[in-house]
Structures are given as structure tokens and as C-alpha cells.
């Protein structure tokens, strides 16, 4: 039975690398005595994947695991799994995946991020306006074949200051090609980025961007609305 699990990565757990997180989940699942499905081949490995790697030191309220179990999974099993996971990795919700859905990782298109702001937000608001008004935002990026220049502007789907919450929220296209890294944007805003966190991951669903669990919800669609919010439910 294949399921997607939404979980948070908070407190000290933000220091786990992607590989550390993988090991931690695999071992938690074995401690919980839940049977995994293994890949066939010379060196079988369990079918566990995460939607998208998170930089070390960054917390998240919306991480996703895509796991295939060798038996049916219900609330009791999920409780056992939660008990086996270290504190700081709480399961938020989970949903069975129907046949035919491609690997979660391959569907990821964008992510929502936020970071707390210092007291003086006015200056940052001005800078945000500047960035949004720019035709292009070239930055230098260290690639495998040396340094290259990439344009961040097309990847900047949304950038806004949440005044009452005193946070900067960002919606950025993901992926090495055409995507933007949250720290690159923060650098353009001259913000240190302490307390950066990921708030949501968005998948491609037709012409829309949708949160993973919404993709699995039949009859409801979530669409991205650049004017209003990151995404909204559409009946």
C-alpha cells in the first residue's frame, strides 16, 4: 500500500541532512515493525522517497514522504510509526495513493517559504517591490561546470511582506533548472535568513499548482492565484 505522509521537520531535526532523514525514517519504520516494499535487483532498497530535499538548518511545516508498504496501513500503524519517529518529526496527515500516480518527487514544481523579518519592514517592502518590478534578476550560481549566471525573476512566483505576522513569504519555482533557492532571494533582499522555513510544497496538476494532499483529494482542485494567495481551493 502506497501512501503519502505530510510531516514537519522542526527544532533540532532541522539539522538532519536529506540522507540522515532517509536513514531516520527507514529505521523508525523497522522499529514500528511495518513491512516495507523493496526494490528488485542486486542491491534491494526500500521504497521510500521524499518530495524534495531541504537545506540543513532549515525547518519545515510541510515535508512529504512517499512510501510503499507491504501491507495495508491504518490509523493504528500510523500511531506506531509516530511513536517510533524522533521528537521533532511529527506526522501531520497521510493519504493512500491511487494507482498510476507518478513518484511524488517527479511532480514537485514549487515551494512556499517564509522567514521572520526585523522590526523595520518598510525598507524591505520597498526592496520587494523593486525585485518584483525588475525584468530580470541575474545571480551567480556555482554549478558542476563552474560558475554561471541564472535569472531568478521567472522563478519568483510570489514575494510578499506579511505585516501583522512580520514575515516575508515567498513562492518559488523549484528544481535545479529554472528554480530559485530561498537563500538566493534572501541575499538579493540583504536578509540574513535566520529562521527560514518551508511552509508548503506544490505539485504540477494540469495548469495549476497544488499541495500534494490536494492532488490526492478527488473532486477538489487547488489552483494557484498569484494575485491573492499561494493557492486556493476551487470547487
Amino acid at each position, binding site marked *: 500500500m502506497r501512501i503519502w505522509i505530510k510531516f514537519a521537520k522542526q527544532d*533540532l531535526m532541522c539539522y538532519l541532512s536529506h540522507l*540522515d532523514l532517509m536513514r531516520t525514517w*527507514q529505521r523508525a519504520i523497522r522499529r*514500528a515493525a511495518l513491512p516495507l516494499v523493496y526494490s528488485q535487483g542486486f542491491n534491494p532498497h526500500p521504497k521510500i522517497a521524499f518530495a524534495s530535499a531541504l537545506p540543513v538548518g532549515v525547518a519545515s511545516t510541510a515535508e512529504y514522504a512517499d512510501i510503499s508498504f507491504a501491507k495495508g496501513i491504518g490509523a493504528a500503524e500510523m500511531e506506531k510509526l509516530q511513536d517510533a519517529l524522533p521528537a521533532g518529526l511529527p506526522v501531520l496527515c497521510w493519504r493512500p495513493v491511487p494507482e498510476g500516480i507518478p513518484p511524488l518527487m517527479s511532480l514537485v514544481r514549487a515551494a512556499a517559504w517564509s522567514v521572520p523579518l526585523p522590526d523595520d519592514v518598510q525598507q524591505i517592502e520597498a526592496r520587494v517591490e523593486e525585485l518584483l518590478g525588475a525584468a530580470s534578476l541575474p545571480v551567480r550560481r556555482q554549478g558542476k561546470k563552474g560558475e554561471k549566471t541564472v535569472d531568478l525573476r521567472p522563478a519568483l512566483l510570489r514575494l510578499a511582506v506579511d505585516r501583522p505576522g512580520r514575515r516575508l513569504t515567498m513562492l518559488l519555482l523549484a528544481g535545479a533548472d529554472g528554480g530559485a533557492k530561498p537563500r538566493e532571494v534572501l541575499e538579493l533582499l540583504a536578509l540574513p535568513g535566520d529562521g527560514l522555513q518551508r511552509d508548503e510544497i506544490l505539485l504540477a496538476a494540469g495548469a495549476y499548482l497544488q499541495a500534494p494532499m490536494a492532488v490526492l483529494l478527488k473532486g477538489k482542485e487547488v489552483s494557484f492565484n498569484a494575485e491573492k494567495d499561494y493557492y486556493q481551493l476551487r470547487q
Partner: protein
Amino acid sequence: MSSYQAYFREKILPRVQKPARYLGNEINAVAKAHEQCSMKVALAFPDLYEIGMSHLGLKILYHIINAVPHWAAERVFMPGSDLEEIMHKEGFPLCSLETVTPLSQFDIVGFTLQYELSYATILRMLKLAGIPLWAFERSEKDPFVAAGGPGAFNPEPLAPFFDFVLLGDAEEAFPEVLRLLEETKALSRRRRLELLSGIRGVYVPAFYREERDEAGVYLGTKPVAPHYPARVKRAVVASLDKAPYPTAFIVPYSDIVHDRMVLELFRGCTRGCRFCQAGVIYRPVRERKKETLLALARKMVRATGYEEMALSSLSTGDYSAITELVNELGVELAKEGVSLSLPSLRLDSFSGELAREVQRLRKSGLTFAPEAGTQRLRDVINKNITEEDLLAAVREAFAAGWTSVKLYFMLGLPTETDEDLHGIAALAGRVMQAYKEAGGRGRPRVTVSVSVFVPKPHTPFQWHGQLPKGEILRRQRLLRQALRLPGVHFQWHGAEMSLLEAALSRGGRELAPVLVRAAELGCKLDSWDDYFRFDLWQQAFAEHGLDLAACAEKSFAESAPLPWDHLDAGVSKKYLLREYRRALRGEVTPDCREGCLGCGMALLLAEEEDKGACTRADLD
């Protein structure tokens, strides 16, 4: 949360590389409120987290101490250089992982002495902790700084830094130490050490001094008062089967060197290889019952969720029910998706059946340790395996589907000649040949790994000096030439690291100020190529009027007192000398399971009731 914990987590952790090694809240880690604990022990491993967390002894003690509700054991490792620098700059002391408590607030800080190249790191850690280095400088409020592990059988280069040293198995002796210290908190430090020295296995260095004649010739290390034992006897656990063993291993987040469950089948070895210190200091052989092991294994899988289990012992294939155990364990673990690995298999116990069983379970390379290239030299070191044993085992392995084999050898063994080195190359060639005979396709990968022999205390080769550096380098060059064979990969160990190991391994207390100086100069983590600074070590030796090379190369006269003579591992000096002489004559000594050889272990055991397998004492 203590103020140290809050500062460390909020101000320091976000700035360090590999923060996952400093979190201290791994699955199965134990953090207790110190106000509710009467004894707090910091278990210190003088190397980085990745190395220290791979060590079984630390896990055993952690489990035993934390099983007592009002005792707390926490871990501490050497921090990475970036963190060390931050700690220096901000005056943040070395703290335990679990509760971020400064080491100076523990009752005991216990270091394990696993290898000589970690000794300078111990001093760096004490400095970072703000604990006085020399035992005599410590006051009533300072923790007891202790040591154990194989290095405890000659801790003399470090002896002045330790309040006490525990010789031998710690499962029973260490809790006894804790109980005593717990009950005697009202007494003076000196009085408590006095009482500790009465516990079997406990050595208090301050109660012994090196005696020398007018010319400065060493006469031995003797007790300062007649009521201390002339020789400190090793602690021995009678029944390993009944001894506590951890199943809830701490499960690290980040990758460590040996990231797996470890099942210790037995302790001790009867083979009697003459270079091997472990073969002496862990006698006699004590096995866990197969049923005990299976039960432990089941619990371990549930408690850790690990994907791999290693069977560990000095010579795993010698376990009396090895094939049945591997069969039954293999089947059970396979159901859980857990693989089984068997390091340290001996050639002669690598039967076809076992080979097939192991092959079913894992696909990685196989390692064998012939140790020397000719039969003559293997007879000298009493490695009782023949070339035919090796080739037969290798053929079995190739026939069972292996394509990669690693062979371990030592360079610089007593009596070694160039012919023995050419023998290594010839053997590697015949292993390649065996692959073709076994019908292997293509070419196998044969790795020849050659370390430099380091003479160790309490072995028949303890009198023998190490080769000079120039000669080690010449022999390594010779091997590199001889091993230019297609498909053969040659790995060798640095001559300079081996020299330092040799200098420290058989040294006395004269080396203590050298260690202090080396740590001051910046030496630490010396087993890492990135950190090892031979020039600084030479300087530290020279500043104290000593020559590092001479210390490594020195041979002891058979009649001379040795710096570790006052520490009794159980095997008599007389027996070791007999073995040394037999070695030089090329005479082999059989496995002592075929008949007691009178090594002296039986005498040590006979002093206490019901101790172990050695029952006869026919020492001549």
C-alpha cells in the same frame, strides 16, 4: 534546559559543520535530570563522533550505567576543528552530548584507550573541559578522570593524568567503582582513591612510582606503600552469557564508520598469534549461548531498526556453533530486511558451508588476514594457517560468487627478510590464479593491505623494537615494486604514524610531559592524515630530551623490568618469553583448546571461585 544547553543549541549549533553529530537526542540516547542522579559519568571517546559512536565498549557501559535509575552516563567526543575553535574563542567548555553539561560537573570522566594515536586528543579534551591535566593538580571538586580499554594494560605514558585506570572487563568492576564512590562522597579524594585501589582491576597510578638506580636505570614501577598490590590484577567477567549486553543501541542520525548493530559472540581467543595483544588481554574464551544471542538479536532489531547486524569477536569463525547461528540468524533477519555481516573470519574456519551462507547474506568483498607472506614467517608469528588453507578458502569464496578479496599483511615483523615480502606478492599472484581455476570470469579484484608491525605490551614480541623509518620505507618500496601485478591493488600504512604508535605503546611515564607538549603544539586526532603532524611530535620528544625514533626502535633486554610489569593481564612474563624464544626459532605453538599451555591465565582465575574455562594450572 540548562543555560549551557540553550546557548549551545541557539548560538553555536547553527554555525557548525555536521551539526547532526552534536544533537545528543538520537533514538535510545538517555538524558536524565542530574539533580536526581547520585552518580554522573561522562563516557569519553578521544576521537570524532563518527569513530567513537562505532565503538562497542562505550555502548556496553552506557547501557549498564543508565540501567540504574539514579545513575547517569552521557557521551562526549572530540569536537570537530570548527567547533573546537568556537569553544576556544567563546570560552565554552567541553560538554556531554545528552544534556550539554560541562565535563567538570560529572563525578567521573572516563576515557577509553583504544589506540595510541588518540592519546594527545585526551589531553586536548581535558583542556577544553577546563579540568586540570595532572591528577595531582585536581581538587576535591574536580571529577575523577579514569581510563579503560586495551591501552589500560600500559597506560604509563598517560598514567599521571588519570586518577584511576580499570584493567580488564568493566561490566562488573565499573559498577563496583560507582557504588563505592557513591557511598563515600563524604570522604576525601585521597581516601576514596585509597578505597578504590582495593577493587579488583583498579590501578591508581599515584600509588606507584618509577624507581631508578643512581645511574638512572629503570628498576620498575613499584607501590609507594606496602599495602598496595605489587601487581594490579585484571578484572574478569566469569560468564559473558550472564553479563549485561545492550540491545537499545543509540541510533545516530548521521553516517558513522560502523553504522550497525553489533552482536558480540564471545570474548577471548585461543589462537595465540604472537603479535596480538587482544589475544592475551581478553583471555580466556567466554561464549554467549546461541539462544542468548538469538534473543538479543531480536530485541536489537526492534529497539534500533538498523538494517545491518555484525557478528563480532576476535575470530568469529571460532564460535562453537557458528554455522547454526549464522543459518538461524540469517533466516530471521532476512524477514526483517536486515543483512548480516561477519568481520574477522579466520581462513581455517571459513568452510564451504559457511561461505555459501555468508554469500547468501551479503555481497560485499571478503577479507582474509594471512599476516605474513611465507610459511616461515607465519610460523614465527604463530599464525597457524598454511598457504593451502588460504587458497582453499579463496577458491571456496570465488566458487560461491565473490569477485573481490582483501588480504591483510604486516610489514616489519621480527625476523622478516625480503624473501618474506616477495612471498606476499607471490601469494597475491596465486590468489589471482585460484580465481581462474575456480572458473571466475574476467579478473578478480585483489587488494593487498599492508600495515606496519607495532610491538605491543603483554605480547611475546613486547621486547622487540620497531624497524627504523628508513628500513620501513625501503620495504614498502620493495613491496610496491613486487605488487605491480594486473588486478592487484596495494594499500600501505604511513611509516611515521606507525613509529609514533610504537613509541607510545611501550613507553613509560617519561612520555607524559611529551604528550602535554604535543597537545600544546596542536597535535590531536593523530590517526587522521589531515591532522597528523610528525614534525610537531618529533619536536615534543626532542624538547624533553627524547628521540621519537629511538623510543620506537628500542629493544628491551629479556631480564630488564618493563614499564608495564606491575600490571597483570593474567598471562605470565615467563610464558611470553618462552613464546618469544619459540618465535625466533620458528616453532609454532598449538591452539590452547587442544591442551593447556600454562600461560598463567588459569592461576589468575583460580584466585576467585567459578571463574571461566581455564581450570588447569600447570605452569612450569
